[in-house]
């Protein structure tokens, strides 16, 4: 069992690692790489995985759920509300239009009975969220107008899955007069119709409220433990939990995850959740595509190639035409409309769900269902190619392609200054800036503080500031100034390394605890560093001088001079430090540095050649001359 699991992991991961880079290398999307990997190791080619390909797919469908959770996180309720017209309008036009046309087409040309035709029409009307969103993301078009309309349609489809799954059992009762079917283990299938509806409404409302009043406080408690893996575990728990709950009441887990995402989109944990779930999503989606590839039953295709291929072709063309018409109604430009319609022209993973659901209910004959499954898989397989053809050969001829536009209607909410670490040090800086009407973005990993700051109207990102994704979403790419003020010097230094590597254009102001930290910062090429032990200590030293009888201004000038001198020596000694033997232990190093400093100080005469306002000096000189 153990070895079996390991061996299978090697198969999947190995196939992915082998084929995805090849696909990328020849300029195809990673999806094709995964699909090919699946085909290669699937029963049709190498046969390394047998029927378990489908099991894997059921498991990997969870990647789609996670993806919808992430999409939900991106869409806070406000943005969601803004999109409602597109979701309802474009989405319903596409789904209903395609379903009706397919329904009549199937009845007319293939002579299926109306129940089967309706189910298959509905299954095929839905597009593949996984493929479309992954493609958009790879092309950086998620936030373009194209991305938004695609997403609106997909979202409507995801919602439509619920009534579709609800309608299918009713069709059965028409066929076989009801009987002993089980609604996929749903707890409420025994209840009467209106009660089911009630339960569904209650569940959805409870997701909303529990998200707000249970999940967020719970995440705060977890965040306080400062254990990264525990937070990841909680994030997974949220997604899995919601999905399970939705399944219990017979709803789509993807939709539940999406709602959970929307609810959490406004919380301070949004970005942390995002970066925690993203790797799982990526991996599972990859697995999902491999599963799709593996499940393509080439035997079925070989048995009846003409039928399957024509079916795929007709399906794609029909979906394309409907989408294009929807695009026309919404006044899309031709080039955008082409990308939109081709992008969504495949059947999708929900098709698998609906078909296997109806197979379970024995409405659709197994052979037929398998053929249709092959059609779905093939149509998913050809989309990336169609997209490629569209981009290479069609778009160049129909006008200017939409550049990954930074849609103007989206408010640019990035601040110019980012402060990482909002403890006593960082918060003082933040307050000073705010008092001067400068908005700052704050990164911190203290959940209590984050909440407080949010209430005060700061833009705060919760999480580990050394993570590139978090920095990116905080706007490090566009920021002017990055203030690294984290308490822990090691973390602060790591953060600076990450920033210099990934965001070379932002200027860094770095907090240094002491001289040793300052040396490290100099080694990393940081020019603006501020030692917390220098300025305060000098201030105190100045006051000590005053207590001993110095005039305040004189003592202050001595302090100013000393700071300048110390800053110069620090830069000088930072270089010199490297001449010493590398294996010197830190403590010893520090002692030697102190020694070096004290030696330098012996030569220091602050104000030694500065006689401003010093009439004693003048008098002495004048008297000397007079004696001569």
């Amino acid at each position, binding site marked *: 069992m153990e070895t079996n699991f390991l061996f299978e992991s090697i198969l999947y991961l190995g196939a992915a690692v082998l084929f995805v880079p090849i696909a990328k290398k020849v300029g195809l999307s990673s999806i094709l790489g995964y699909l090919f990997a699946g085909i290669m190791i699937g029963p049709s080619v190498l046969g390394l995985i047998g029927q378990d390909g489908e099991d894997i797919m059921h498991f990997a469908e969870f990647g789609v759920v996670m993806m919808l959770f992430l999409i939900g996180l991106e869409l806070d309720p406000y943005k969601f509300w803004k999109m409602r017209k597109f979701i309802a309008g474009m989405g319903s036009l596409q789904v209903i239009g395609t379903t009706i046309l397919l329904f009549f087409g199937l009845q007319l040309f293939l002579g299926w009975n109306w129940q089967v035709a309706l189910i298959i029409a509905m299954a095929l009307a839905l597009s593949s969220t996984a493929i479309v969103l992954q493609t958009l993301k790879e092309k950086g078009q998620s936030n373009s107008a194209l991305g938004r309309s695609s997403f609106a349609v997909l979202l409507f489809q995801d919602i439509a899955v619920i009534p579709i799954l609800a309608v299918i059992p009713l069709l059965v009762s028409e066929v076989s007069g009801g009987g002993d079917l089980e609604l996929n283990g749903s707890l409420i299938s025994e209840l009467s119709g209106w009660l089911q509806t009630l339960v569904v409404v209650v569940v959805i409302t409870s997701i909303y409220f529990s998200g707000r009043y249970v999940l967020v406080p719970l995440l705060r408690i977890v965040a306080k433990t400062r254990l990264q893996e525990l937070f990841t575990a909680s994030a997974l728990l949220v997604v899995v939990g919601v999905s399970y709950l939705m399944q219990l009441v017979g709803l789509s887990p993807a939709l539940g995850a999406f709602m959970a995402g929307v609810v959490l989109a406004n919380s301070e944990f949004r970005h942390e959740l995002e970066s925690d779930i993203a790797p799982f999503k990526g991996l599972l989606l990859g697995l999902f595509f491999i599963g799709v590839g593996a499940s393509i039953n080439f035997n079925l295709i070989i048995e009846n190639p003409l039928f399957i291929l024509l079916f795929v072709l007709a399906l794609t063309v029909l979906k394309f035409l409907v989408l294009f018409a929807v695009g026309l109604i919404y006044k899309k430009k031709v080039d955008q409309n082409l990308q939109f319609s081709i992008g969504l022209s495949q059947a999708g993973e929900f098709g698998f769900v609906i078909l296997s659901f109806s197979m379970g209910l024995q409405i659709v004959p197994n052979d037929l269902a398998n053929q249709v499954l092959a059609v779905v898989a093939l149509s998913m397989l050809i989309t990336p190619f169609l997209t490629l053809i569209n981009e290479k050969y069609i778009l160049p001829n129909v006008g200017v392609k939409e550049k990954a536009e930074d849609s103007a209607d989206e408010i640019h909410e990035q601040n110019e200054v980012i402060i990482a670490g909002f403890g006593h040090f960082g918060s003082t800086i933040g307050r000073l800036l705010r008092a001067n009407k400068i908005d700052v973005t704050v990164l911190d990993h203290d959940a209590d503080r984050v909440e407080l700051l949010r209430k005060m109207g700061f833009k705060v990102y919760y999480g580990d500031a050394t993570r590139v994704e978090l920095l990116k979403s905080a706007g490090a790419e566009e920021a002017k100034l990055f203030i690294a003020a984290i308490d822990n010097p090691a973390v602060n230094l790591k953060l600076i390394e990450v920033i210099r590597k990934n965001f070379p254009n932002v200027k860094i102001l770095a907090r240094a605890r002491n001289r040793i930290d300052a040396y490290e910062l100099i080694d990393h090429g940081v020019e603006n560093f501020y030692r917390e032990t220098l300025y305060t200590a000098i201030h105190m030293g100045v006051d000590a001088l005053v207590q001993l009888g110095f005039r305040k201004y004189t003592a202050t*000038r001595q302090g*100013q*001079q000393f700071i*300048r001198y110390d800053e110069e020596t620090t830069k000088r000694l930072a270089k010199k430090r490297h001449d010493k033997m590398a294996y010197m232990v830190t403590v010893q190093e520090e002692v030697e540095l102190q020694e070096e400093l004290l030696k330098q100080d012996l030569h220091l005469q602050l104000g030694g*050649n*500065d*006689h*401003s*306002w010093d009439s004693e*000096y*003048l008098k002495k*000189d004048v008297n000397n*001359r007079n004696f001569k």
Partner: protein
Amino acid sequence: MRTNKILILFAHPLYEKSHAHKALIKHMPKTENIKFHDLYELYPEFNINIKYEQELLQEYDIIIWQHPMYWYSCPPILKQWIDMVLEYNWAYGSKGDALRNKLIFQVITTGGKKENYNATGTDRYTIQDLLQPFNQTAQVCKMIYLPPYVVHGTHLMQEKDYQTSGKDYGIFLSELLNMEVPINQILKYDYLNDWCQNELKTYGN
């Protein structure tokens, strides 16, 4: 043709809100022979780097103190600069010859009109009277103190007036860069601007 090197020591505590000086500075010729030295920007804590300032002074032939007129004198950092940088036995005193024969003058803006600055006007003294301490300081440092370049009436100006005065100043500076400065001729004038008006063909058009 000789090239003069000009050092502009600029002192304005609220430069971001100044119109006149912004216009003047905007029209300064961009050349390595003119150094614009913004004292408030360099020494916000009045901790002037004496050594650096002295080295700088020695590199340049013509020194300009450019500042608004506050309470009949310069903004405090310029006085701080004078106090700290012009050291005994460097700038003055028996061994203090570092600045000998360098040219120095002031570029000044006043809110009030020119007519106010005379015995019968509201300000009771002429600009030259009021600038005597600077004149004498330069004298002690063995420098040649030229009459001031004055922009009067900045409170009453519109944006285009600022630009005009800035343009004139730019012309003056570029002429100054490449000339044997006729010291005796200039000393006959109260204001450097008047000399420009009369003697520079390109000026004031």
